[in-house]
């Protein structure tokens, strides 16, 4: 279990770094979604299934979607 948790911590750190290094906002929204999934697996491994469920719905689905829609909106305004 400790090994799994350690591995997941490393994965989350790598995911966060990848997220920061992704500079294109559109791609960043997708990477953020993967990062949310990683984070929720870590929460599950740390025996917090309640938090993991919330993270999955909010971090992996809702926030990336809001970002994408906001980006689409900004692009629409730029085209005008």
């Amino acid at each position: 279990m400790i090994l799994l948790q350690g591995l997941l911590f490393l994965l989350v750190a790598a995911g966060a770094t990848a997220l920061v290094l992704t500079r294109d906002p559109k791609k960043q929204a997708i990477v953020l979604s993967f990062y949310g999934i990683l984070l929720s697996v870590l929460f599950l491994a740390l025996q917090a299934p309640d938090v993991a469920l919330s993270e999955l719905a909010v971090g992996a689905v809702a926030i990336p979607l809001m970002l994408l829609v906001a980006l689409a909106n900004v692009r629409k305004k730029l085209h005008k």
Partner: protein
Amino acid sequence: MSARIRQLLFLASAPGMALLLLWAISGLPGFGNYPGPYGDLLNSVAVYERHVTNVVTAVNFDYRALDTMGEEYILFAAVIGVMLLLREQRQASHYQPPTLLRTAYQRSDSARWMGLGFLGILMVFGIYIVLHAQLTPGGGFQGGAILGSTSLLVYLISKESVYRRVTPKFLVEIGECAGAGGYVLIGIATLLAGGAFLQNVLPLGNTGSLASAGTIWVINFSIGMEVAGAFSMLFLEFIEEVPERTAKSE
């Protein structure tokens, strides 16, 4: 501030920040060691006192139910805020509806079939998570978020007009408001029943059965409705900002 000064400022402050962080981390209790008495106490009494098998839920919706009410209203206020801003903007006289509509992409067959397959499962899973709050991990917040996101799946596998038909705005609004108001009404009902505000006055039932844990179950149901409504509302408002091209508007 030029890039060079910013970089120097960062290099000067980063070691200090790192030192402070390390200092704080070294003072943390060992990984997995819980030092306080509150959690251990609850772990040993909650199952007998409240007939729950998920102690987290007992804390959130019974022992600290008032705090959770505030938390629920944070979400409620946030969604109302988004709604006010966006709707106000759209109704203003100088508002111009977007002239450049997005092309409605044809959803691929694989995405449609997979989404269609998941739709029912996700919905049932969301309802399950809400209703089993006192038994298994999850509860109104998590289940509601899953239910709210399920409506998005419809958007992903069909088109905007279909999505609008399955999540009518007035129903979503009623769900959100009834859920949020329901929490307070439950509190008032417990007062009328002779208890304190949000005290668990209902019969507790058998530990482990669906109809157990008294008001915890009822509160979770109302929160599930609120959160599902809030999420759907948020998605509806945002998607309205980037309308898809339909046959009519072409």
